[in-house]
C-alpha cells in the first residue's frame, strides 16, 4: 500500500490567504465600523482569532493526522483533529472519479479527488498536482477492470 499525505504547500497558501483576508477585513472594519468602537474591535478580534486558530492550530493538526492509503484491493483514508476517523473502501466497488483542480492548483496544492462508490465516497483533500495524477492513474486501472455485478 502506498501512502499519500496532504501537501504542506496548501497549508502555507491557506495561511497566506487568510492573513491577507484578515488585513482587508481589518481595514474595512476600521473604515466602516468606526462609529461603534466596541463592535469594530470585536470583528477585528474575530477575524484574527479565526486566522490564528485555523492557520496555526486546527489545520496543522489536521494535516499531520491525515493520510490516504492506496492499494490494489483497498483505499484507506485516516483524518481528523478532535476525533480521528478511518474510512476503508474496496477498490472493486469504485464507480468513477472526480478531480477538482482549481486555477493555480499546480502551485497552491489545494486539489481534491473524490472517489465515488456504491453506498458512499471518499474525499481526498489538499493533494498536490503530481499526487492527484498518480492516484487517478492507479485507481483508473482498477475501475477499468470489468466486474461481474
Amino acid at each position, binding site marked *: 500500500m502506498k501512502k499519500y499525505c496532504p501537501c504542506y504547500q496548501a497549508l502555507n497558501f491557506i495561511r497566506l490567504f487568510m492573513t491577507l483576508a484578515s488585513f482587508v477585513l481589518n481595514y474595512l472594519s476600521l473604515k466602516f465600523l468606526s462609529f461603534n468602537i466596541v463592535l469594530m474591535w470585536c470583528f477585528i478580534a474575530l477575524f484574527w482569532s479565526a486566522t490564528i486558530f485555523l492557520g496555526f492550530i486546527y489545520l496543522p493538526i489536521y494535516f499531520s493526522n491525515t493520510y490516504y492509503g492506496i492499494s490494489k484491493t483497498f483505499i484507506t483514508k485516516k483524518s481528523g483533529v478532535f476525533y480521528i476517523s478511518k474510512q476503508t473502501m474496496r477498490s472493486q466497488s*469504485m*464507480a*468513477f*472519479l*472526480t*478531480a*477538482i*483542480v*482549481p*486555477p493555480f492548483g499546480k502551485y497552491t496544492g489545494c486539489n481534491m479527488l473524490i472517489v*465515488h*462508490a*456504491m453506498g458512499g*465516497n471518499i474525499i481526498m483533500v489538499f493533494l498536490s498536482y503530481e499526487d492527484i495524477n498518480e492516484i*487517478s492513474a492507479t485507481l*483508473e486501472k482498477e*475501475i*477499468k477492470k*470489468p*466486474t*461481474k*455485478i
Partner: protein
Amino acid sequence: MKNAKKKTARESLKDFFAHRQHPIKIFGYTTKYFYLLLIPLAKYLIAVKFDINSWLRDRWVDILTLLVIFAYATIRWACVSFSYEKNFLIAKTGFFGIKRTKIYFNKITSASLEESLFMRLIKSCRICVDTPAGGDKNSDLNLVLSKKNAELLFNAISIHSKKHSCPYPKTQYKQRKIYMLIFSLLFSSTLSGAILFASLFYKASNYLGQSLENKLLEQFSTITSMLSKYVPTAVMTIAVFIGGGWIISFVTNLLNNWNFTCFRRGKSITITGGILSKRKHFINVQKINYTDMQQSLLMKIFKICSVRIHCPGFGKKRSEIDALIPISTMEDVKNTMKLLLFNSQSSYTKLAPSKNQTKRFIFLPIVLLIVLTIISVLRKLLLSKFTNINNILLYLMVVLFIPAVWLLIVKATSVYYTDIGYNEGRIRIRYNYIYTFHTIETDVERITKAEITQNIFQEKDNVCTLKIYTRAENNKIHFIRFLDLKKTEDFLKNSGLWEL
C-alpha cells in the same frame, strides 16, 4: 496560406462547439434575477415606443447588470466541456470547469436522452448518465447537448454493451395503446400531479409576480362559493385537490409514456417513448438489481400486471416510470420477460407463513376500522348540534371507510401471496405493501443483507419478520412477515444468505 489559416480557425471553432453544451444552456446558468430584470426592461422599451436612446439613457444600470449576468453565464458555459473515447467519457463541470469527472462505459448502469417539445424546436437534447455510485436523487452526469452530439454520445455508451456477443436473438416489445391508457388510469397519483402543478405554479409566479397567484385564488373562491350550497367548502377543496392532482398526473403519465417500446440488443435494453417529451433510455442488463412485478387486487383478479426494474439511474426523475413492461396480461409478461431478460425460473423452493397467521395480517386494518367506527359514533353523539362540522366529518368518514374496508380485503388475500423462494442462485420474494402486491426476482449475489426481527408478540408464537436488503443507491428493503422462525433460519442457510 491565408486560406489554410482560415480553415484552421473554422475547424477550431467547430471543435470548440462540438465539445460544449448547447448554447441554450447559457440561459440555464443565469439566475432568476436575469428574467426579473429582462421583463421590466422589455416592458419599458415597449412603453417608450422602441426609442432606443431614451431606453439606454434611463435604464443603463439594469442593462449593464443584465449584460454582466449574461457574460458570467456565457463564461460558465464555455468552461463546461465533455469528450469521449472508445471506453470512457470525461466531463469538465462545476464553476469554470474545475471538476473533471471520468466515467468508464463498463461502469455505466443507465443513460437517458430527453427531448422536450421546446428542445426539439432548438435541436437540443438532455443526456443523463448514471453509475451505481452517486446519490439517488440526481444523475451522476447531466448535460444539455445538441441533438447530434447527444445521439453520438448515447450510441457510444450503448454500443459498448451491444458489441458483446449474445447467443439470444434481438427482441422488441411494444406496449399496446389501450394498455397504456389502463396503466395511466391505475398508476396516476394525486400527490405527483399536485407536486407538478405546485412547482410549475411557483416558477410562473416567480417571474410573473403576485398577480397570477391572486387571479387563481379569486377564480377558485368564486367556484367553491357557488358550489358550497350543495357541498361543504372544505370537502369541495379536498375534492378539487385530489381530482385535479390525479387528472394532471394521468395526462402527464400518458404523454410521457405513449409509444412505449423496449428493445433488447446484446447486454443492453433500450426503452423509448413519449409524445411531447420524447425519451430514450439505455440500461445495462448486468446492472439490473432486481425485477418487480406489481399488481393491485383488481389487477390480480383480471390477471394483468406491471413489471418494474430497479437499475441505478433508471426512473430517477419524478416524471419517469421505471417500467420494463408498463402493463400487460400475466401470460404476455412471462413470455416477454423470458425474451427480454432471459430469466426462465418457474419452480422455487418456497417458505411461506402458515394460514393460521391470517389474524396477524388483518389485525391493523381491523384496528383502523374500529377507530373509524368509534369516531363515527362519537360524531353522532357529541357533534349533532354543529351541522357544518358534522357534515364534514360525515363525508370524511365515508371517504375513509371505503379504502379501510378495501385494505382489509387486500390484507386477507395477501396471506396467499406472501412467500420467499430459492432456486439455483435466484431468489423470488412475494409480499404485499399497503395495496400493492410485489413479486421481486433477483440473484442471491445482489442481496446485501438479510435480517430476522421479532417483536414481543411474535416471540410467543415463534414467528418472525424477514427483511431482505437488495443492492441499491439507497436502502431498499423487502419484508416477508409472520414466517416460522426455525424454518426461516433453515431457508437462509440453504440459500446461502445466512452469512449476510
